[in-house]
């Protein structure tokens, strides 16, 4: 009895002393390792393959959900309906309904989705920039490539936000404490920042895309966007310069039927499709299978805007009929769901736009011949005779027309063109009953103004 008592006593004392020791070391840290099934930023930015996955994650998001998507909530469809390119037929609340009626309100969920989706990808791009810059885990070449792509994304997405909402905050960090009270910045200031980012990207991005499919942005892509921006800002010389750089270094697809194939020589940057889809989302959104259309279709205004014999009407516009009436739809991309092979990718930047940019810049600078040459390049492919415009104003009208029939339903070119030439009211006023002058800007989403008062004031008219 006595011995076992002592044994117990001793072992108990040991346990107690041990726990007392633990007590003394109670400042032991409570850190737990990130479990295997979760990936944190810290771990992601130690592995170039993971960063590559994060980078393509941004492209995949832009392709499928956010602003540049061909899905019905992307700019191609929304701004097509907003202007005079598309008509809306559905009785149910599809994303473009309020856009079509020009009755956008500050609490519209699709307006909010454009804003939130865009800034979410800007965050992702900033995260990559911050994670990769000066990091020992990446070689200088890897750092350059990732930084180039991230800066390009940042410039590109802010560009669209700026042209949709007017003055916006330019976000360059992932620090939410700063970003949650970021104020609206003046358009000129934002353009300066965008141009700075794009120039840096231009220096870092490679000349050609290693995949051979033009699915990653290259130096030419950055230059193409710079050309567009300089045109919008009426810096004609720079616009011509950049456009020329792109034109001189890239090819041209002469055959109008092949322009939207994935092998088109005119493509500067296109989206690699999702494995399950194989082709573009635009095809599914725009092709009308049966008459009468029950979601959307091309507006008659646009369908009848083509010159007779314009091959683009022939190859890029489809039609359906119920025997009595005919409806048209954008048919640039022809392979929808169910196609077995991958033939078409969604194109973001292509050569035709560069020619038109240069034409406009040249016209503005007085280079009539140069402008005509560029316009005719486009017209020739469309099977049309040379342009008859000779004066600057005639040329500008002709260029606007060409842009209209060449670049329809491609990420909102129509809306941006009418806006930058101050023709929105003149052109849309007569044909869109809901149109107001203040519709030149989208409303800042209501929730944003509630949570970040620095975003005040709201755009006029909302």
């Amino acid at each position: 009895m006595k011995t076992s008592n002592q044994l117990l006593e001793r072992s108990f004392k040991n346990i107690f002393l041990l726990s007392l020791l633990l007590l003394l070391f109670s400042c032991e840290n409570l850190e737990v390792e990130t479990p295997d099934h979760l990936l944190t930023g810290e771990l992601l930015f130690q592995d170039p393959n993971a960063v590559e996955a994060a980078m393509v994650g941004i492209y995949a998001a832009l392709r499928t959900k956010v602003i540049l998507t061909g899905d019905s909530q992307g700019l191609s469809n929304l701004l097509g309906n907003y202007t005079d390119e598309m008509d809306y037929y559905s009785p149910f609340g599809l994303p473009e309904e309020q856009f079509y009626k020009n009755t956008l309100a500050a609490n519209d969920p699709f307006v909010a989705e454009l804003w939130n989706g865009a800034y979410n990808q800007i965050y992702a791009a900033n995260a990559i920039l911050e994670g990769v810059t000066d990091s020992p885990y990446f070689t200088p070449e890897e750092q350059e490539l990732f930084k180039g792509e991230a800066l390009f994304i940042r410039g590109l997405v802010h560009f669209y936000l700026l042209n949709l909402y007017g003055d916006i905050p330019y976000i360059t960090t992932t620090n939410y404490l700063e970003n949650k009270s970021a104020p609206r910045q003046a358009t000129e200031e934002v353009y300066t920042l965008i141009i700075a980012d794009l120039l840096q990207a231009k220096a870092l991005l490679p000349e050609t895309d290693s995949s051979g499919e033009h699915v990653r942005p290259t130096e030419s892509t950055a230059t193409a966007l710079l050309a567009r921006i300089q045109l919008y800002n009426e810096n004609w010389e720079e616009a011509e310069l950049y456009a020329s750089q792109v034109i001189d270094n890239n090819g041209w697809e002469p055959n109008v039927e092949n322009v939207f194939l994935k092998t088109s020589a005119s493509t500067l940057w296109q989206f690699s499709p999702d494995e399950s889809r194989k082709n573009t989302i635009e095809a599914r959104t725009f092709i009308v299978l049966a008459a009468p259309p029950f979601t959307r279709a091309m507006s008659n205004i646009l369908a009848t805007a083509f010159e007779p014999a314009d091959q683009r009407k022939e190859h890029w516009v489809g039609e359906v009929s119920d025997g009595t009436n005919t409806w048209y739809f954008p048919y640039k991309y022809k392979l929808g769901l169910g196609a077995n092979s991958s033939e078409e990718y969604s194109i973001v930047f292509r050569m035709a736009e560069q020619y038109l940019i240069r034409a406009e810049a040249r016209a503005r600078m007085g280079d009539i011949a140069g402008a005509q040459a560029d316009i005719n390049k486009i017209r020739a492919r469309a099977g049309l005779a040379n342009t008859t415009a000779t004066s600057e104003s005639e040329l500008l009208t002709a260029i606007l027309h060409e842009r209209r029939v060449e670049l329809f339903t491609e990420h909102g070119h129509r809306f941006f063109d009418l806006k930058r030439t101050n023709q929105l009211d003149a052109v849309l006023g007569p044909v869109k009953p809901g149109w107001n002058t203040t519709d030149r800007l989208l409303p800042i989403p209501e929730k944003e103004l509630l949570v970040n008062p620095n975003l005040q004031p709201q755009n006029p008219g909302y």
Partner: protein
Amino acid sequence: MKNNYRRSYAYALSFALFLTYNSPIFSQNPPQKNISGIITDGEDPLVGVNVLVKNTARGSISDLEGRYSVRASANDTLVFTYVGYKTQEVSVGSLSGSLSGSRSRSVSRSRSLSHSSGGIVFNVVMEVDAQALDAVVINAGYYKVSDREKTGSITRITAAEIENQPVSNPLAAMQGRMAGVNIVQNTGVPGGGFSVRIRGRNSIRADGSEPLYIVDGVPYPSQSLGDYNLSPVIGDAQSALNGIDPNSIESIEILKDADATAIYGSRGANGVVLITTKKGKAGKTTFKIGSSTAVGTVTRRMDLLNTEQYLAMRREAFANDGITEYPSNAYDVNGTWDTDRYTDWQEELLGGTAYYHAASASINGGGAFTQFLINGNYREESTVFPDDSKYKKGAVLVNLNHTAPNDKFDIQFSGNYIFDSNDLPPFNLVREALVLPPNAPALYTEEGELNWEEGTFKNPLAAWNGEYLSETNTLTANTVLTYRPIHNLILKANLGYVANTLEESRTAPHTIYDPAFGLDSSSSSLILNNGSRGSWIVEPQIGYDIALGKGKIDILLGSTFQKEKTSRLQQSASDFPSNSLIYNPAAAANLSITANSEEVYKYQAVFGRLNLNWDHKYIANITARRDGSSRFGPANQYANFGAVGAAWIFSEEPILKNNISFLSFGKLRGSYGSTGNDQIGNYRFLDTYIPSGLTYQGIQGLQPVQLYNPDYGWEVNKKLEAALELGFFKDRISVTTSYYRNRSSNQLVGIPLPGTTGFPSLNANLDATVENTGWEIELSTTNFQKGNFRWENSLNISYPKNKLISFPGLEASTYANTYVVGEPLDILLLYNATGVDPETGIYTFQDFDGDGAISKPNDLKSVVNLSPQYFGGLQNSLSYANFSLDFLFQFVKQKGRVFQYTFSMPGQMENQPIEVLDHWEQPGDQSGQQLYSAGFNSEAYTAYNNFYSSTGSVGDASYIRLKNIALSYTIPQKWTMDVGCKIYVQGQNLLTFTKYKGLDPETLSTNNLPPLKVINAGVELTF
């Protein structure tokens, strides 16, 4: 230096010598005598009284007749101890000596002694300890306190109440018995879950208000490992408390206010549920075996339309919609189905009888120093569904205690192992039973096959060709080592371990679909869910008490180390070559992993308690804890909590004690302090990336999902309480009234962020405050206590009030249409239903914003409060001779969603309650219900949809239930040859009184089975 060593050596040596001198080996022993006698309380023999020979290993326990016998010498002292009675110490030397004559006069009346040859007979009468309330010792978690002197709000039930109830989950045993504790059963299916709210809901997140469960000092994780997607029959997921066996519970204490819960720091905000399992008791080795059988049926059914009324409704509906030729899919009216058939589907699908069988055995025994208890239980429950599903549960409890004879130390071990298996039906039939048209075809054809009536009948039993199986194992083990080196000092270590595993599976073979679709096993699928969790805890503690004159100071200091690891794997498989391989995922053509996680949770704390007690009249209790948890961001892992409680037993003041004789006890107590809530998942503060599901260039893209928040920290709940406890007429009437006010802030929510940050919200602490206030009244009375008859009553009633006091940025958050500042959290924002338009027969609603349309969210302006207004229970206990009868009525006053919320629009192809018979039929009619429509009147359809979200879908859901009634009879031992035999009959949920228009006012749902009414009979033998 050398001198020091020599000195300490000298001390150690003399100490050792001192110890050895005191050991029994060295003490001189005069001759030993046998001392025996009978111990009584003045009338009856006392069983189990501890008789010790002080400072030796010798001792004895009084047997069933109060007899004891012990050997001692004249030098020894005998110590008699028994709970609830005053301890007596007698020197043996004073017993021996001269015979009864002169001795007896100077001996107090509590002793009588005589000499017999070779031994001394010494009978003892034990005196009840006047402080009767003191005898009730309450487990407050880290310390024990007497009911009389406690400064906190703690409520308690014991094995006596739990044994009377035929339940398999301890939460069911607690319903209606404790003030401030609202427990709602979610479904009547065995293994189903409960929702527990102690003093209301503190957290804006619906899943953040669970209390902390502690079993024998070991925190018991209460989040289920189950996935409710696998078995919707259970309602939510399986209750994790199925892993605690009610038969092994000795007592359940619930700690409510700051004084009681602050010592649990960051986990005590929602209250603490302490479960103590049974312990071995000293005494003759006792065997107990018991067996019982019960039958159960559904407590309530709804009154539904019969075939005639139903068909009349359908015909009128089509007529209202202007349809004369019935559509081809209107099988019930267009002649496809027999219009004369009638089946009471509730009877067919829910009307079965559930059978319960339970058997238990236990061995209990031990001497003065070592006691043990081994308890085993097995239980089987079937369901009311027309199948043979069963819930099986087996449990083993082992408890060992050992105390050293020198009373210096103690070791206590408890181990519990529970195994349960459940093969409930994979799909719920409750809604089907209510809405199937009464003339729907038979379930089986004449050949015994499932009847599809040529593709027109979606047979509800087809879904049962699939199976749901689940097996869980739970092990809780706990050891407490206590060492008392000197009289006032206690060193203690509490070591515990809990392990749970769960394996769940659900199959959906192609046979659940109509064979006419021509499917084969390539459409069969399987879902598997496996989870496991292990958690260990170490808590070393030091306790010291100091006596200073009339006062006493108790100090406790301790620390906690806990680590928990949870892993889960969920897989889904489809496309099997044959259904006989359906349980083998390797045979499936498609196999994917739907969830895979492994989480670690670490927790550390230091805590302390200081209790000052002056003259048993003025008591102050100060508790504090410093906690750290891995669930929070690195900047905020540690926090401090504390509370102050005080009590004044004013009935002991001379003025009151001497003058007001009917007031036997009066105490005023109050407390204030802070506690925390850490109930969020792990890793919420990390910036994580997940595969977006989209590929680009063949690579799976990654996208960021949330922001990094190093400041993620605790929710804080500050609790204030004041209470008055009174006892009258020697405590024959005791009443406690308490008022509490809890304010919970620093709420863990998704704080809305502007989109420019990249995300819509951040997991962070919001400065929103939720307040719970309320009154609790507990009244117990002993109505009769004469001779053999005793009648006691106890009533508990709680009046809770909940309010969202502030929520900055509510309008911009995702909660904008769920909560309103100034209203309780459990509200609904609804349209205001303004009756049926007598001209059109369609529901109308108030157009708050005047825009001519009824739309969300602008017209959802009526606030309806679903939290209970008051709730409680009334318990009666009567005992006469060997009979005892206990019954409990539980009552709740509340509102809930009524049948119109879950039934579809009357006139469509679904049965309805008879309430719809009173409806609008023609212009000019005044009625509460709109016209019948078969679904082709879009105005009526829209109006009915709006009605779901209107005040018309909410009604009174108050109820009174005879929750439990238990009658037991202990057969007198003279008839049973000294074998203790108790027979009993018990009933659970036997009667329900309610005006509720729906299936069940407690579950408030037509998707879940109502609780069952159960009658149980059994016998228990003790020998």
